[in-house]
């Protein structure tokens, strides 16, 4: 078997041949037991790789290994088509094309794909974790911030499920209580809807005045 033929069988196994090339190779496979043996060998190698991937997936617990398991399951679904080659050694050339349908493009290196999926999942987890930690590190300014009325309406529209997605909101509130020290007293901060923006209110709990009753935070 020449190197060109071997490469053709590999491309056939990978589903990279054109329909005409695949059909021609079908006839050759039906007539040439050596070619069928090469193709069967490729199928066995593929099964071994898939089995390794599945074994790793079975032992995995984290999300990355779950992705790997899914890749292995996808690869295992292709195997039945490859096992048809084992019985084709004595088939007549006229009956052979029915046995060797042009394969759908399949993965040759599922383990490599699984490894890539692991890296992608790990990178996504790192990005998500970094973003979460960044949000945690921010000062609690947003809760005390007032946005112009158009931004408030945008945010409310974003909360509605059937409303169109608003454009990116500029992350600069019109007014913000950045820090407050109530000292030994009690107090609270809240927002009151105003004319154009929500107005931040710092409400202090004061001792009763000489001529009045105690006024507590409502």
């Amino acid at each position, binding site marked *: 078997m020449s190197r060109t033929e071997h490469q053709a069988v590999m491309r056939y196994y990978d589903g990279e041949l054109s329909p005409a090339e695949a059909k021609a190779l079908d006839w050759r496979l039906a007539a040439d037991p050596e070619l069928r043996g090469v193709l069967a060998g490729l199928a066995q190698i593929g099964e071994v790789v898939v089995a390794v991937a599945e074994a790793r997936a079975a032992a995995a617990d984290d999300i990355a290994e779950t992705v790997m398991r899914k890749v292995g399951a996808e690869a295992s679904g292709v195997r039945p088509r490859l096992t048809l080659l084992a019985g084709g050694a004595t088939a007549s050339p006229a009956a052979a094309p029915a046995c060797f349908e042009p394969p759908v493009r399949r993965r040759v290196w599922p383990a490599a794909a699984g490894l890539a999926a692991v890296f992608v999942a790990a990178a996504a987890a790192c990005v998500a974790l970094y973003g979460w930690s960044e949000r945690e590190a921010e000062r609690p*300014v947003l809760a005390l911030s*007032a946005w112009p009325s158009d931004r408030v309406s945008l945010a409310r529209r974003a909360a509605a499920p059937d409303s169109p997605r608003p454009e990116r909101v500029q992350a*600069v509130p*019109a*007014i*913000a*209580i*950045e*820090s*407050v*020290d*109530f*000292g*030994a*007293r009690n*107090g609270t901060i809240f927002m*009151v*809807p*105003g*004319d154009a*923006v929500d*107005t*931040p*209110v*710092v*409400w*202090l*709990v*004061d*001792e*009763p*005045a000489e*001529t*009045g*009753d*105690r*006024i507590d*935070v*409502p």
Partner: protein
Amino acid sequence: MRSTCVALATTLALALLAPAAQAEPDPPGKPPAKAEAPKPVPPATHRAVVLVLHATNSGRGIDKRIGKMPELEKPPFSSFDSYRLLMRRRLPLSKSAARKLRLPNGRILQTELVDVLPREFVRITASINQPDGGDFLPLLEVKAKLGQSFIVAGQSHKNGILVLVIRIEAVGPDKGRTGEKKK
């Protein structure tokens, strides 16, 4: 002749002792003999407009001098049916120069312009102190766009509370009375 010699000796002695006396540090706890000249206050670039309102349930409604303030018609301010304008003050602000305002209940509101930020934002601090120097509201730091108000409320005063409405405006030749640019 003798008196002239005595006078010369006295003058010489004083001239020799004077630099030594100046080099001596002031004893601890003793105020300097000559008070330092007050630092010149830089020209105000901004001003804090402070409205002091008195909220009560006296059935008088909202003072027309207050103007339009929808916040007073919403909780918790709507729990009072009367708002009277006690004072309206404009405190000129410049960086690192605190301004004080005595409130009707005797406490002192102190505001200071900390920083002027891009896009017409400023950072100011405010505090309210007792007349005896004690803290009431030690520190409040606000980052605000010019013209936006914030409210400090809750101080008891004559059967009601005080509501301080504070708004920062720019001061300049191209700015109008309310701090807005002239068109």
